């Protein structure tokens, strides 16, 4: 056995980090992921938004600001990355539906239509435009999911409530893993004698094998079924995260979870290792190359002080849009607050600009000018830049 220096150490276990890590383990590299905790992806709908402005998400790219990271990846790069993601998910319990060249809409818990690109197969049947009859089946007391929001906005939708004996998304999703619960639930639906059309559920149809459960119910009640994503705690987000993490582990990757980076060891322009803050003795994770994908403010990759913004691991220079008074618009709900452009500026090889580190690459929402909230490009950006950064990292290693 040789002393273990990882080929690549990925810092940040979210969509971008896992995309990089899965690509690299797939190419035979030894990879570790260090993460402070579970990513924002756990709170997401599980859908992959690429860009919401046009029918083809890629058509919206020319309209983005000059510095948007999508320009560094290009249309082909984005398509390749999304296809890579679809391929990875294909062999898991949560395959995805859709193509990178077409946006679609899904039904939300308040009855509106959300534009997105790739969706988990359990949401593939989601209807927002046609006049098909939809019957929503929700659960008594389920928090933050009020079917009347959906029915009040549209004709031809009705709902029924099932008493599962518990009222959290996690609790109900756990019950769905149990065969006898499903049996009782299915016979309850059969007794409703629903009109023809589709049946929609909040996204709680199990955690580990949702598609299998959905198919089982669908077969037995003879109706097409789809899931509606819920507010956090979001089961589709949790499924996506767990699936990525277990795919990574299965591919031979190591993970250090719940760990904060205490210090960075470097020699000249090369980072040699990071140490993790632990009670007692800090543990050391050495690597040949490093990918930073710690996310933006919510995930703790960026931290705002009163007057400036800091990058929390390597203290990289951060692009900050003007002074604090320029950061926010007056109206909170107006899209495009300037602070959204804050982040790390990278060159075309995804190395941070104005730093000495030659073996550090940056990807995901920590990149400057991504403006995820405004462009609706979160997971898409993470996958596209994570994939590209991994490919460049691979060139660097060989």
């Amino acid at each position, binding site marked *: 056995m040789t002393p*273990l220096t990882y080929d690549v150490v990925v810092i940040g276990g979210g969509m971008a980090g896992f995309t990089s890590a899965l690509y690299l383990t797939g190419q035979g590299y030894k990879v570790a992921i260090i993460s*402070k905790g579970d990513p*924002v992806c*756990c709170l997401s709908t599980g859908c992959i938004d690429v860009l919401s402005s046009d029918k083809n998400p890629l058509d919206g790219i020319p309209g983005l600001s000059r510095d948007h990271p999508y320009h560094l990846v290009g249309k082909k790069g984005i398509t390749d990355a999304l296809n890579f993601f679809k391929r990875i998910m294909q062999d898991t319990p949560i395959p995805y539906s859709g193509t990178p060249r077409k946006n679609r809409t899904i039904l939300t818990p308040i009855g509106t239509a959300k534009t997105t690109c790739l969706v988990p197969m359990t949401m593939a049947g989601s209807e927002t435009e046609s006049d098909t009859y939809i019957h929503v089946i929700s659960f008594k007391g389920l928090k933050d999911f009020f079917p009347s929001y959906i029915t009040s906005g549209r004709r031809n939708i009705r709902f029924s409530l099932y008493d599962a004996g518990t009222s959290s998304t996690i609790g109900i999703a756990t019950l769905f893993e149990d065969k006898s619960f499903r049996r009782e639930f299915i016979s309850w639906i059969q007794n409703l004698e629903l009109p023809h059309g589709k049946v929609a559920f909040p996204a709680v149809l199990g955690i580990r094998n949702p598609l299998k459960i959905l198919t089982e119910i669908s077969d037995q009640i003879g109706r097409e079924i789809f899931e509606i994503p819920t507010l*956090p705690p979001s089961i589709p987000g949790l499924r996506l995260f767990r699936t990525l993490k277990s795919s990574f582990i299965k591919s031979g990757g190591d*993970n250090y979870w*719940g760990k904060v980076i205490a210090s960075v060891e470097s020699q000249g322009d090369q980072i040699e290792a990071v140490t993790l803050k632990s009670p007692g003795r800090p543990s050391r994770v050495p690597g040949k190359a490093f990918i930073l994908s710690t996310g933006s403010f919510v995930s*703790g990759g960026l931290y705002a002080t009163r007057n400036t913004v800091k990058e929390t691991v390597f203290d990289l220079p951060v692009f900050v849009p003007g002074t604090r008074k320029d950061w926010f618009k007056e109206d909170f709900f107006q899209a495009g607050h300037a602070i959204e452009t804050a982040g790390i500026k990278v060159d075309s090889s995804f190395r941070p600009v104005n730093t000495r580190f030659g073996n550090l690459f940056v990807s995901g929402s920590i990149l400057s000018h991504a403006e995820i909230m405004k462009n609706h490009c979160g997971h898409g950006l993470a996958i596209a830049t994570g994939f590209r950064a991994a490919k460049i990292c691979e060139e660097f290693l060989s």
Partner: protein
Amino acid sequence: MSFEHCVRCTVCVENCPVFKVEPLFPGPKQAGPDAQRFRLDGEKSVDQWVRLCSQCKRCEVSCPNDVEVSEIILNAQLKYSREHLSPFSSHLFANTYYISGLGSLAAPVFNRVSSWGISKGVMSLLGIATSLPFPSFRFLTLQRGWKRRGRGARKVVFFHGCFLNFNRPDIGRGIRDLLASLGVQVIIPKQSCCGLPALGNGDLDMARKYAQQNAATLARYIDKGHDVVYACTSCGLTLVRDYPGVLDITLGEKISENTYNVHEYLLSLIENGYTELAPAQVNMTIAYHIPCHLRALGIGYPAARILERIPGLTCHLMEDNCCGLSGSYGFKKKNQGISRKLGQLASSAIREREVEAIVSDCGACRMQLSHYTGLPAFDPSELIVESMKKP
């Protein structure tokens, strides 16, 4: 980070095993940071559901803001226990060390009697769950065997904990002899319970008493150049984290800095070129169930990295489920239902993988999962020892 750093994102709620199956528990966010601001000094706690937390620490590992969720809950549990009478079963389990000592002294009798119907009836009256067979005791404990093995430049003191001592000394002996065969001097000093059962049952004073005894012993060896190694991941987490943390032991920092998981230690020996490991073929497909407290240690999964080097061994790493036993937690009648449901969930995930055996670092996880899957369960070191036997 204090409770004020919580941004209410609910990631911890997604990770809480108890919340998954018990609607009476409001989840780590509400039980921890949310309720914390109402827990004022001098006001009696009313949050009796806080005792439903099993201290698996999954909330803390998942928290993206580094909030010490389970520590907040642990302190709330201790506060609740201080202010209320604890049930008899809690006193019993806090004293696991003494009871196990008695149990192993009278092992043949005790093991027989504990399986009798009438004894189960008595235990049930005392609030003890009887659905899971009680672990049997061994008279020839680790403490009653060789206390010193091997020679070499590397010296370790082995903290075996209660389970390996009283219930599975064979595993302890395997680890002792494995280390010795790799050129490590192993010492097994007299030691107490790590203190976790007392801490988990609301008896801070007793936990500190144990911790102080152990810390004094271990520190003496550390001063003489020994490293501390542990095999039980819950004992390990207590030594590394709680001795300098919630138990606030004077020598806590020293213990914490010098304590290693046994597989972490083995890996370091191999990676530094001190020794070589040439495992022989072991043809088996296993599910490696990661104990929650190994996750919480944040040292990665060192045993998995050794197991992956054993030719013929196919290892499915399972880390999404808590086994539900959580030491004495699942042995209490009031938690029996929660524990059973979690055990079944973890077991069905394992059964889907079609494995021949389960491997886990934690004795409690092994007991629980073996019971619900009907599969044999091993400590990783048992497989390593097996693979090192010359054919």
